[in-house]
C-alpha cells in the first residue's frame, strides 16, 4: 500500500501508523451527558464499507497526523490532507 502524505509525497504504508475514523469530535467535558458522549467518542465507530476518512500518523516520516480518504472495500485512496490546520500552515 502507498499512502500519499501531503508533506512527503507518496510513501510505503510501512512508514505510517493507523489510528481509525477521522472527524470524531472530542465531547465537551462539561456537557450534562458527557460520560455518554465520551463513551460514543471512544468506542462507537462507523466502520464503513466503502469510502472512509481516517487518521494516519506519518510516524516514520514527517510526524504529521493526516486524514486519508480511502475505500475500505478496494483500498483505493482518493485523498489525504493534514489533520491540523496548523501543520498545514507550517507546511506551506
Amino acid at each position, binding site marked *: 500500500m502507498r499512502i500519499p502524505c501531503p508533506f512527503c509525497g507518496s510513501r*510505503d504504508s510501512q512508514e505510517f501508523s*493507523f489510528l481509525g475514523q477521522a472527524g470524531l469530535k472530542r465531547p465537551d467535558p462539561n456537557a450534562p451527558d458527557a460520560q455518554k458522549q465520551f463513551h460514543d467518542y471512544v468506542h462507537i*465507530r462507523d466502520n464503513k464499507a466503502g469510502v472512509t476518512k*481516517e487518521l494516519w500518523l506519518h510516524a516514520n516520516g514527517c510526524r504529521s497526523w493526516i486524514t486519508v480518504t480511502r475505500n475500505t*472495500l*478496494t483500498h483505493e485512496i482518493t485523498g489525504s490532507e493534514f489533520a491540523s490546520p496548523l501543520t498545514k500552515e507550517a507546511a506551506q
Partner: protein
Amino acid sequence: MRYSVFSIVEQAFKGQKDWKPVWRYPEPKAEYDMLIIGGGGHGLATAYYLAKNHGYTNIAVIDKNYLGSGSVGRNTTIVRSNYQEPGNIPFYEHSLKLWEGLEQDFNYNAMMSQRGVLNLYHSDSQRDDYARRGNAMMMHGVRADLLNREQVHEIVPFMDFDNARFPIHGGLMQWRGGTARHDAVAWGFARGADSRGVDILQNTEAKQIRVENGKVTGVETSRGFIKAKKVGIVAAGNTTRIAETAGLRLPIESYVLQAFVSEAIKPLIPCVVTFGAGHFYISQSDKGGLVFGASLDYYTSYAARGNLPGVEDTIEEAMAIMPSISRVKLLRHWGGIMDMSMDGSPIIDKTGIDGLYINCGWCYGGFKATPASGYCLAHLMATDESHPVATALKLNRFETGYVIDEAGTGAQPNLH
C-alpha cells in the same frame, strides 16, 4: 446417513456410489421462527444448537456466499482456552469442552487434535504475566503448565535457543489446546443442523433487517423477504454492514488479518507455538504445511487480502524463533476480515431491538469459540437469558466499564 468405519468399507466396495448429500439446497420458506444471518461456523453452530438443545427446527441460516465461506474456512485452526480475564475464561473453557466431544456429537471428524498450545516467554516480566494467566485459568479448573527453558527445549528442540534476539526463557503450555480441521467444523455443524431440519440458504444475501415498532419482523434478502420472529446477526467481519440496516451502531471495526501456509514437509512442529516477543503463532497441519499468522494488517478493511509489510513482518517473526525453516517455502497467503471489538473480546447479547440478537467482536479468536458461540447464542435466542458462561459478553460493557481487555491495549482495536 451415519458415518462409521462400516459405512466407509461398504462404500469402498460400492464405488462410493451411495454417499448422500451432506446438506440440502432448500428453497426459502416464507417464515421461520429463527433466522440466522451468516452461515459461517458460528451461525451454523447456533442453528445446530437451537435445533439440538432447544428443539427449534423451523430455522434458517442465510449466507451471501457458500456456507463456511468466511473466516471458518480460512483461519489458522487453533483451539485453546488459555485466557486470563474472568469474563472470558468460563466461556472459552466451555467451548473447549464442547470441542472435546464435538466429533462424536455431530458424527463428523473435524480432526480435533489436542497437541498442546505453547506460549513462549522471553523475559521475567513476561513469565510473570503468563503465570498470572495460568493461575487465572487454574482458578477455573483449567490446567496450565508453566515450563522453563529446558522443558520447552524438549518439546521444540529445533527452535533458536542460542542466537535469538529475544531468547526463549520458557513457555506456558495448555496441553488440551490444539488444532482442528477448519472446514470440517463448518461442514459438521451444517450437516448436523440440516439433518435436524434447519434450512441452510446459501448464496442468499441479507439486504435489510426489517424492524417495526422496535421489533424485528424479518430480513429482506437477495431471494426476497423472509419473515422471522427472531433474527441473530452472526456476520463476523461484516457485522457492521448488517447491523446498520437495523440502525445499530457498534463498538466494532473490521480489519484484515493474514494467514499463511507453507509447502508440506514431514512432521516438524509437534504443537501450536506462539512467539512472545511478537504476535506470531504456528502449527503444522496433518498434511504437513506449516500454518501460521501474526498481527493484523493494521488498517480497517473489508477486502479479504493483505499487504507485503504484514507478510514480511509475519515471516520475520517465524524466522525469529525457528530460523531453521528458512529454506521451507511459503505456499499461499490470504486474508480475512476480523470483527475487532474495542476491548478485544466478543459480544453475545440482545440489541435493544426486540427479537434481534448479536454475536460479534471475535477479533482473531473466533474459530476456537465456534461451538460455545453457537451454544450461547442459541441459549440466548431460545430463552432470552445469557448463558451462564457468557454473562460478561455484554454489548453495554463499554458504557459500564466492565471491559474484558486481555491485552490491556485499550479501545484501539488494531492493537489487540
